[in-house]
C-alpha cells in the first residue's frame, strides 16, 4: 500500500506525497489529448491548470466526464496505480519550493533526488536560463558561460532540458562543478534523447531533474507550456539568451512577468532573427545582461539587500579564463577583437591584414588559452 494519506492532509515526514495530489497528476496524464488542444490558448490554459480535480473534469472532460469521475473516485479511495516514493513531493509538503506556491502551481513534483536536495537548491537564489528552441553557436556559448559563472557564484541555475540552449546551460553548470535544476517536459524517469543522456546523468548526480508528471509520461505539447510555468515561477530572475520574436519563444517571459519575476535578456546582433525576441524584451523594459555579473546585480536588486547571500561575487566574468585580454600581446589581441566583432572564420581574420598562416596560429593559440571556441562551420566565437 502506498504511503498516501487522506486528501488535503499533509503527509508524514519523509513519506512523499498525499493521495489527492498523486491522483491529480494521474488525471492530468489521462487528459493529455484534451490539454494539448487547450494549450493553444496560452492565457486560459494556465488557469485551467489551476483547477482542482472535479472542476477540471467538468471543464474539459467532455464525453469522458463520467468515466473520469469514476477513475478519480477510485484513485482517491482504492489502490493507486502509481506508488508515491521518497523522491516525490506534493504541494502540501513543507519542503515544497516556496516559489511555486501559486494557484496554478503543480500539485505534484516527481524528482530524481530526495526532496531535501531540491529544498537546498531552491533556498539559494534561482536563475532560469531560457531561450529559443533553436539557437546559434553564440547563444549556446553565452548560455554555457552564464551558467558557469552563476554556478561558480553559488546561484542555482534552472533550465529546460529538451533544447540546445538549455543543455548548454547545464553543461556550463557542470563545468563549474555546480548543481542545476532541469525542468523536464516529460516524466523524470523517461530518458531524453541519446544526446542528452550523458548530460542528464551529470545533472542527476549533483542537481535535480523535476517534472510534475508521472515518471514514464511522454512529452506532449501541453507539457512544454506546463514546464514553462514551473521554470518561470521557480526562478527569481529569468534570463533569455536568444529568442525569436514569436509567441512560442516569448511565452515563458509572459509567465515570469505575470508572477512578478525579473526578466532579463542577452542582446545579440540587431540583424540576427534569433535575437529579435531578446531585443523586443529589452525594449519592453527587460534588464540587459552581458555576463554573470549583471545577473548577480539583478538578483540582489530583486530581493533586497540580503539576497544573494551565499553568493560569491568574486570575478564571475573571469571564470575559466587563463589570461585577461589586456595581458595578451598585440597580435593575439587584434585577432581576438576580430573574432569578437563577428569576423570568426580564418578567412575573415586574415582579411584584416594578418597572413593566412598567422591567422590560423593565432586562432589556435587563443583556443588553447580558452578565449575562443571553434563552432560549427569552422567559425570561431569568443568565450565570455
Amino acid at each position, binding site marked *: 500500500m502506498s504511503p498516501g494519506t487522506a486528501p488535503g492532509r499533509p503527509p508524514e515526514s519523509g513519506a512523499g506525497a498525499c493521495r489527492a495530489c498523486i491522483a491529480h497528476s494521474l488525471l492530468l496524464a489521462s487528459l493529455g489529448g484534451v490539454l494539448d488542444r487547450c494549450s493553444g490558448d496560452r492565457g486560459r490554459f494556465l488557469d485551467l491548470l489551476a483547477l482542482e480535480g472535479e472542476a477540471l473534469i467538468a471543464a474539459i472532460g467532455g464525453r469522458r466526464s463520467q468515466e473520469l469521475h469514476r477513475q478519480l473516485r477510485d484513485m482517491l479511495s482504492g489502490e493507486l496505480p502509481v506508488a508515491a516514493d521518497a523522491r516525490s513531493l506534493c504541494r502540501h509538503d513543507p519542503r515544497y519550493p516556496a516559489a511555486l506556491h501559486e494557484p496554478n502551481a503543480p500539485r505534484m513534483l516527481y524528482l530524481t533526488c530526495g526532496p531535501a536536495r531540491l529544498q537546498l537548491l531552491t533556498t539559494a537564489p534561482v536563475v532560469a536560463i531560457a531561450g529559443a*528552441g533553436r539557437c546559434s553557436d553564440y547563444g549556446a556559448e553565452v548560455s554555457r558561460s552564464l551558467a558557469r559563472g552563476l554556478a561558480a557564484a553559488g546561484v542555482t541555475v534552472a533550465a529546460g532540458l529538451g*533544447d540546445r540552449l538549455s543543455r548548454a546551460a547545464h553543461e556550463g553548470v557542470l563545468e563549474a562543478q555546480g548543481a542545476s535544476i532541469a525542468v523536464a517536459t516529460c516524466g523524470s524517469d523517461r530518458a531524453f534523447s541519446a544526446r542528452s543522456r550523458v548530460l542528464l546523468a551529470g545533472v542527476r548526480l549533483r542537481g535535480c531533474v523535476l517534472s510534475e508528471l508521472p515518471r514514464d509520461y511522454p512529452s506532449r505539447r501541453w507539457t512544454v507550456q506546463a514546464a514553462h510555468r514551473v521554470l518561470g515561477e521557480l526562478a527569481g530572475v529569468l534570463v533569455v539568451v536568444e529568442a525569436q520574436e514569436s509567441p512560442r519563444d516569448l511565452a515563458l517571459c509572459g509567465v515570469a512577468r505575470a508572477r512578478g519575476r525579473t526578466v532579463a535578456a542577452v542582446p545579440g546582433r540587431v540583424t540576427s532573427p534569433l535575437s529579435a525576441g531578446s531585443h523586443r524584451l529589452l525594449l519592453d523594459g527587460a534588464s540587459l545582461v552581458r555576463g554573470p555579473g549583471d545577473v548577480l546585480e539583478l538578483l540582489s536588486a530583486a530581493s533586497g539587500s540580503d539576497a544573494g547571500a551565499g553568493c560569491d561575487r568574486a570575478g564571475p566574468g573571469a571564470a575559466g579564463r587563463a589570461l585577461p585580454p589586456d595581458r595578451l600581446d598585440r597580435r593575439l589581441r587584434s585577432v581576438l577583437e576580430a573574432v569578437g566583432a563577428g569576423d570568426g572564420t580564418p578567412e575573415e581574420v586574415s582579411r584584416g591584414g594578418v597572413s593566412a598562416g598567422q591567422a590560423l596560429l593565432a586562432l589556435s593559440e587563443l583556443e588553447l588559452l580558452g578565449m575562443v571556441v571553434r563552432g*560549427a562551420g569552422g*567559425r570561431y566565437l569568443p568565450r565570455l
Partner: protein
Amino acid sequence: MLARAHAFTVDGLHARHVMVEVDVRPGLPGFAIVGLADAAVREARERVRAAILNSGFEFPARRITANLAPADLPKAGPGLDLALACALLAATGQIAGEGLQSHALLGELGLDGAVRRGGSTLAVADAARRAGLRGLVVSPPGAHEAGLIEGLHVAAASSLRSAARVLNGGAGDPVPASAALERTGTAEPALEEVRGQHHAVRALVIAAAGAHNVMLSGPPGTGKTMLALRMPSILPPLSTAEAVEVTRIHSLGGARVVGLRSRRPFRAPHHTVTAAGLVGGARGGVLGEAVLAHNGVLFLDEISEFARSAIQALRQPLEEGRIAIARARYAAVYPARFILIAATNPCPCGYAGGERCTCSESELARQRRRLSGPLLERIDLVAHMREPGTAGADAPPLSSSALAREQVAAARERQASRLAREPESLNGHLGPSALARHLLAEPRAEEMVRHAAEAGLLSARGAHRVMRVARTIADLGASERVRTQDVGAALALRPEAALA
C-alpha cells in the same frame, strides 16, 4: 598430332598463364574444348573454324581436342581464340611450331580471320614478360599498349595469316601511327581559376603534399566541387611504375589505351553508388571507383548522402591502400591508394551555427551522426568554406597550379628523403610509430599539442592527425623541424570534435 601455344586469361588485374594444347587424331570429326572455359571461350570453336577456312588454311575433318591448362583455373573471354587457332594449325602441320614455344598469343578472331584486341593487352604483356616469354603476338591496336612493357618483342598481327607468318619467323604487320601520348592537357582545370577561398586552397595544397584525406565543408555554391576538380593539377605527374599500374587498371576497365597515362585519375562517383560500385564486384565485372582512383583522387561529393555500406566498404582501401574482394567462387586483390576528398554541407541549410541557420536541432544531430563514423576517422583535415560574398569574386587567386605543383613536389621530395628507410614515403600514410620517429618537432610545438589534448580539444587519434598534418605543413614550409606555427595551422584545420 599435338601442339601447344602460350596464352593468358585475365583474372582481376592479373593475367594468368594458360597453356593451350590441341590434339588432332583420326576419329569422328568434332572439336571439343575442355578446361573450365566460359561461354566466350566455348564459342571460340565456331570462330576458329570459320577463321581458319576463310584464311585459306585447311580445317581438319578429324577429332580435335583442345585442353586449356591448368584445368582448374576458370578461363574467360575471347582472347584465347588466336592461341587456339595457331595451336590447331601447328598440330596439323600447316605452320612450323617453333614460334609457338617462345611467343604468347592474344586476340579474338573474326570469321574472316581478322585479329581483334581481346582483353587487357597491358596486363597480358606484363605477365608474358614475367613468364619469361620472348614475344607476344597481338592485334595492331594492342601492339601499342603491349609496347609499353619493356623487354618484350611485340609483333602485330592483323589477321590469322599474319600471325602464322610471325610464328614462322616472318615480320609482323606495321603498327598504325597512334595519336600522341595523353599529356597533362591544356583543358585541365587550373587552380588560378579559383578566386579567394585561400584557406581551402591552402588545405588542398597541404593534402596534396602529404597525401592527406581532406574534407571540404561549406554551403552550396562556395566552390567545393570546383576546388576538388583542381586537385589532380597540383599533384606531381605519375612515375613510370605508377603510370603502368594506372594504365593497366584503366585498360582493364575498358578504356582505349593509346599510351601511358600521365594524368592522375580523378573519380567522382555519384552518391547513389553502391558498395560494389565503389570497390568492385564479381569476376569480370566493372572495376570499382576506388580502384579506378588508384594513385589519384577519389572525390565524394555530398558525403553525408552516401549509403552507409558504401562508406564502410572504403575502410580497407583507406587503411591498407588495397581492396581484397572475396565472392562465392572468386577472390581478387586490387590496388587502391588514393587521396580522398569529401565534400559536405555543414548542415542541411548550409549555415550551421550561424544566425541564418534554419535547421532544427534534430536535423543538425542527424547531419552530425551521418558525418561521424569510420570513414571520417580517416580524414586528416577539414577546410571550412564560406560564401565569398562580393569581395571574394574579385579576390586574387592564392596560387597557380604550376606553382602549387612545384611546392607539392618539393614537399614530397623532403618527405621521401626523410622517409627513405620506411615503406611509406608520404606523411599521410604514416602510422603512429613511424610518425613519432620522423616527426622532429620543436619542444614548444609538441607541448602545444599536449596542451590541446589536455584542454579536451583533441583525442589521442586527433593529436596524431594534427601532428601528421603539422609535419606536412612544415615540409611545405621547407622546415626541418615542426614549429609552433605548423601545429597552430594544423589545429585550426582539424576535423570537428564529433569526427575526432
